[in-house]
């Protein structure tokens, strides 16, 4: 994934880069253009002076050299015309100055002359620099102004978009209230808003009906299950049946029991989704855990060890607290051997349950998903840990799983 930049930052950046590029380009163009212009002006002066000197020589005027500006020499042979820059010491200014020099050879009235004309290049660099600087200054000023103008304008223009984006971030499937979006006079934003409204409403109603469906299904299943159960109870009492038939019937009863559990858990999940657990009370988890351990011990699970230095109290629904502890312990029982200890630790805001395991889970990230089972060894509903996660999410508790030194470790951080 590439690094994400904010829209306004990005447009501003584009704006600034374009500005910089334009300023640079125009400055270069201006520089080249002015320089050429200045040079051609100087050359023009040189050539016109040359013409005037030649003219004067032709009319037999005596010309005195006037170095370094003008030198007229009689020479033996003619040379090539040279136009070049030269640096000559200017005693008046006591510095080296740049001159443009034109040196030509002319035959005037039978005599060969070398005419050298120089023109001090008027501090053209300074001019150029001044021009470029003022150009850049104009650009910078214009850009600062335009930048602020543009940014504020953009922010205003995009504000419905940003506000709606915030709303969408806050959108929750489980929320009963529909998402509130702002309309805009920009056609695209208005369209976007309408599409989002449509989409979120659709998603919400779909979710609602799906939830309702699950609830209805599990609810409707209770009655036929009750009928099956009642009929089975009567069969074993009314009829002469064989041991084998009895065995089969009790096996059916086990399946009914599983379906009962499944129904109950789906209903619990749906109820948590529907926020039907609103009673918040102060639950002493330490006591609850001890009670649970006692009742599990009656079921011959004597390998539960509760080590805690401090009492742990949590504000939550009592029924959910019971489910939370029960599911965590049941899970540990299901996945450990009776000879291995299941350790439950409570300390300030923390609950840690660990049980022996031969190897780490292959997909620990799926552990809290509904109907996820790592193995088929135990016929569980696959909902116990999903409910645990749901309860933790409801109250903002943080649950985590780790495999540490041959142990599966579940820990819940109750601090918010």
């Amino acid at each position: 994934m590439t690094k994400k930049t904010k829209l306004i930052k990005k447009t501003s950046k584009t704006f600034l880069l374009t500005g910089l590029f334009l300023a640079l380009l125009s400055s270069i163009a201006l520089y080249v253009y002015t320089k050429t212009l200045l040079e051609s002006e100087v050359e023009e002066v040189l050539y016109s002076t040359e013409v005037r000197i030649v003219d004067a020589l032709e009319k037999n005027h005596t010309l005195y050299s006037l170095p370094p500006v003008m030198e007229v020499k009689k020479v033996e042979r003619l040379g090539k015309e040279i136009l070049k820059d030269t640096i000559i010491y200017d005693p008046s200014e006591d510095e080296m100055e740049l001159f443009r020099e034109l040196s030509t050879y002319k035959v005037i009235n039978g005599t060969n002359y070398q005419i050298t004309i120089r023109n001090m290049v008027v501090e053209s660099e300074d001019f150029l620099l001044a021009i470029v600087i003022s150009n850049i200054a104009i650009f910078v000023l214009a850009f600062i102004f335009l930048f602020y103008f543009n940014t504020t304008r953009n922010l205003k223009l995009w504000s419905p978009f940003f506000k709606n984006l915030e709303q969408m971030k806050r959108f929750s499937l489980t929320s009963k209230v529909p998402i509130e979006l702002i309309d805009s006079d920009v056609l695209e934003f208005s369209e976007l808003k309408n599409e989002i409204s449509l989409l979120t409403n659709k998603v919400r109603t779909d979710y609602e009906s799906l939830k309702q469906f699950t609830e209805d299904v599990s609810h409707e299943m209770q009655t036929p299950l009750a009928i099956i159960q009642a009929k089975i109870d009567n069969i074993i009492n009314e009829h002469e049946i064989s041991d084998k038939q009895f065995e089969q019937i009790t096996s059916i009863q086990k399946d009914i029991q599983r379906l009962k559990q499944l129904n109950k858990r789906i209903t619990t999940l749906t109820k948590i989704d529907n926020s039907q657990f609103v009673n918040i009370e102060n639950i002493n988890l330490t006591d609850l855990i001890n009670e649970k351990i006692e009742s599990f011990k009656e079921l011959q699970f004597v390998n539960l060890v509760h080590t805690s230095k401090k009492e742990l109290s949590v504000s939550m629904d009592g029924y959910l607290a019971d489910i939370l502890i029960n599911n965590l312990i049941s899970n540990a029982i299901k996945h450990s051997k009776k000879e291995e200890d299941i350790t439950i630790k409570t300390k300030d805001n923390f609950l840690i349950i660990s049980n022996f395991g031969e190897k780490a889970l292959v997909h620990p990230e799926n552990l809290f998903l509904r109907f996820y089972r790592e193995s088929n060894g135990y016929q569980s509903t696959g909902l116990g840990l999903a409910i645990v996660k749901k309860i933790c999410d409801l109250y903002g508790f943080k649950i985590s799983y780790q495999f540490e030194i041959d142990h599966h470790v579940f820990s819940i951080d109750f601090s918010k």
Partner: protein
Amino acid sequence: MKYLIAEDELDLQQSIVTYLQRDGNICEVASDFGEALEKAAIYDYDIIILDINLISGSGLDVLKTIKKEKKRSGVIIISANNSLTDKLEGLDLGADDYITKPFHLAELNSRINAVLRRGKYGGDEIMEFNEIRIDTKSRTAYIDGKAMPLTRKEYDLLVFFISNKGRVLSKEIIAEHLWGDDSDLLDNFDFIYVHINNLRKKLTAEGAKYIKTAYGSGYKFIED
């Protein structure tokens, strides 16, 4: 005893009737809201088994009528909804017990017996079977007036057996009755043997040989 079973699922209604009639009880049925309301208001029953979701009406309204008419019938609500609010509403309106579908008929029968005991003995809550006498309030069982030392589970088991005397109770039913949802943690019910055997030993020691094995892994509480 005279029962009214207000349940619109006829199969379930008939199964309950069959189970209850075995003890020689009289069972009347109501298959919809109107019938349930009418029968509950006119006649007197010892126990009314009331489904909350009746066709064309709520069992809770029938319950309100029963209470308004000051009927002395015990009411046990049966519902597909196991939500706590429904349970509390039902109990607040004066129902004596609440049981969630699906349930074992033995469990329903056990609850009916508990309601009957409370109604009949006005709080003494005594249960008797030949020489066995159980004070359900103090949770003590006596044989020939001699208190029996029973563990909590053995006591629950004995009450469950006597409530469903003459009927077959499989280990699954017993496990569910004693441990509820947690019983699904057990991959086998061998340890129930332990509880049943301990109870059987204690009873047999006093000459009460009532627990019989039925079929492969069911039990029956019957006289010789």
